């Protein structure tokens, strides 16, 4: 760089500040995609392990894994987008159960087209409800964890209004279209990938997506950059509601019906938080994406299956799952800390 003549006496001794050396392509890639790559590697190991346990690994076995993961994967997306914006949502599971009950109420005795129409309506309703929850959080100033916890009770109650007992009879065509046949795993895989591609990717690239990341990263800086803080917060919940609705519809398709069991929702909420954390989304916001949580959701379904395959007691399998989550997140956190700390 060129030198400049000093204008303030005695302040300048000809010392020239050098431009910062850019971080290498490799380390930039590692920072952006490192965690997702790590989760993918973990998933690969678990898959190989699971395959080696089974006498035969074919379409049926794949379908068991993917169809079983679909709802958790979609719910992890819902939780993920809200956590990225700097919030948390303890009502995603109840929202999913509510969507499940609504679609189980409306879908039976309808053809494929009717079922698809119902699915769209259900997703619109969950999105509207989530928007309302987001608006209450933003307008009232009550912490998000409290509002969404309360909302989860309300939604569980509403699910009981909609359906007072489990109900089945959803069109088999619809089930096949979303969750696949017993020997056809591809629809479930395509739906997970499709939601990522059609909903998440455009959002991630949009100004709203940037605003969601900025909000979670540093709320004050986002405000000073002209981001409409309140709107962005609310819209992050709306996006979460869309994904929760998708999860509800997927649950209907994979089980062929619905049930107002509150504990389904609670467990699913906690699993979604686990998937988000394991998938590399920082609970402080601003960091991570939705691919990681989806891969993490697959890991979380595989772990108990593997433990059962080893002949472990189911309760031990649960313990093992918890221990693995803590270990993975702690190790990954330490690795990241070492990378971000300058030597």
């Amino acid at each position, binding site marked *: *760089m060129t030198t400049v003549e000093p204008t303030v006496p005695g302040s300048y001794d000809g010392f020239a*500040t050098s431009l910062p050396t850019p971080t290498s392509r490799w380390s930039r890639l590692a*920072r952006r995609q490192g965690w997702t790559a790590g989760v993918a590697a973990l998933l690969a190991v678990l898959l190989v392990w699971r395959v080696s346990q089974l006498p035969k690994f074919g379409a049926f076995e794949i379908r068991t894994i993917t169809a079983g993961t679909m709802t958790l994967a979609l719910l992890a997306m819902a939780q993920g987008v809200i956590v990225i914006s700097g919030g948390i949502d303890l009502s995603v599971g109840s929202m999913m159960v509510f969507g499940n009950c609504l679609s189980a109420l409306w879908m039976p005795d309808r053809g494929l087209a009717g079922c698809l129409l119902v699915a769209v309506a259900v997703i619109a309703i969950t999105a509207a409800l989530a928007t309302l929850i987001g608006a209450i959080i933003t307008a009232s100033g009550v912490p998000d964890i409290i509002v969404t916890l309360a909302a989860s009770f309300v939604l569980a109650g509403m699910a009981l209004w909609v359906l007072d007992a489990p109900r089945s009879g959803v069109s088999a065509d619809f089930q096949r279209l979303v969750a696949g046949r017993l020997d056809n795993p591809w629809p479930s895989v395509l739906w997970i990938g499709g939601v990522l591609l059609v909903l998440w990717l455009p959002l991630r690239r949009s100004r709203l997506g940037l605003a969601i990341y900025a909000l979670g990263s540093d709320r004050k800086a986002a405000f*000073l950059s002209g981001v409409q803080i309140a709107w962005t917060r609310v819209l992050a919940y709306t996006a979460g509601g869309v994904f929760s609705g998708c999860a509800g519809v997927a649950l209907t398709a994979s089980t062929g019906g619905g049930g107002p069991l509150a504990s389904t929702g609670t467990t699913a909420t906690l699993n979604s938080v686990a998937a988000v954390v394991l998938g590399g989304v920082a609970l402080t916001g601003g960091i991570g994406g939705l691919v990681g949580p989806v891969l993490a959701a697959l890991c979380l379904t595989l772990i108990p299956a593997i433990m059962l395959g080893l002949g472990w007691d189911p309760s031990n399998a649960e313990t093992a799952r918890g221990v693995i989550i803590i270990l993975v997140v702690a190790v990954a956190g330490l690795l990241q800390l070492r990378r971000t700390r300058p030597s």
Partner: protein
Amino acid sequence: MTTPLLLETSAVAKAFGAVVALRAVDLRVRPGEVHALLGANGAGKSTLVKILTGVLRADAGAIAIHGRPVALRRPADAQGHGLAPVFQDPAMAPDLSVAENLRLTRVDVPAVRRHLSDMDLGQLDLGEQVRDVPLPFLRMLDLARALAFDPQLLVLDEITAALPPDLSERVFAVMRRWKERDRAVLFISHRLAEVRAHCDMCTVLRDGRDVASFVPAEGGEGQIVAAMLGEAATVVREEARTRSATAVDVGDTALLEARNIGAGRHLEDVSLAVRAGEVLGLAALEGQGQDVLFDVLSGNRKADRGELVVDGVTVKAHHPFDVIRRGVVLVPSDRLQALLPQRSIRENIAAPLFNRVTRWGPINGREEGRRIDEAVQRLSIDTRAASQVRRLSGGNQQKVTIARWLARGLKVMLLFDPTRGIDVGTKHQVYDLVRALADEGAAIVMFTSELREIGLVCDRSAVLHNGRIVAELPADAGESALLRAAHGLETVPA
């Protein structure tokens, strides 16, 4: 006086609860002018900047741009009216790349690039994550972003504080260019030499009012300093409480000694020593590393370099408890950070008593009560709102933070701006208490943003500038000598 004003504020006021930041400020900036906004810490500069840029809303007063009254409710409003700020803290989300941050503000990115290459920074990589960009370059990026809005008034809040001299020169070049285009710059800086060299006009704030406006190159630094201090400079220091001849002798060994402490970019090489019975005053402008120094002294942060010696023993502090158990205690400026706001006075004072985790068994209620009563009486704490500390006045809260250490016993007390925001009467009680503690043999380090307190309470002073001790002065050196040293100007030996 026929030139229309680019910016005019009249009687702008702002209060935060009981604290009045701005009483009534009139500021007049003409086109083609670089206007400096000056004032001591807490005079209201930053609040005024935040109001002008739409971050805060004024409680009262009017703002006009080119003669037309405007309402600035949001940062976007200010931008729309041609006011572009560069804030003290970089306004960029750390987890996004620079380019993404630029997209967020709807700024014209090619214009940002153009301004960057004008400042000879065209090679900066905008794909870099903000976290990875060193602070001086973030300031320059912030500046380029502000310039890309092509503002009528460019507001630079302490931009040169974090910049090396050669980058500062590029900022000055931008200021000159803006002036030539008949636009204006509002320039806030603690560096008076920069103000003299580059500003056409200056307005000095004191206690939330504009007290003087003049051409800085004519008046010189003397006039600036006098305006910043105001009448306070002429007040007779009759109540000075420097160590009396009857007090205990100052010991030979220092109770607390810092040797060549360095920490990150904030502290370079700080050495200081305080002996028993002595009050050392620390003076500094905002952001010169005093908070980091206190963090290191109180064990809240590990120093990167140098060592900390307490009563002759080198201490490797990993945790505040490591220094607390050797009798070094901190009274921070944010009282609610030190206290348990929802609990009673009694519990707050008792809390540090239970720090010795090796001592088991139930709490000795009678002993606890005795020590607390003693401390409460000694500090004459108003106990009417005793059940919740947060309901006490600021002054009484500060007394409780001091009382909890009295009840525990201490060798060294570190006070960080202990009288910030408390009333005059309580201030004097705090001064008396500090003096009394020293006379009983404690060593005291007190940072203060009110320079007159150095003359009132301290035995000698050290001045911190840019992370270094730049001067050590006797207590009676006077405020203007302190202020000159704090601005990095050389001092005339007393």
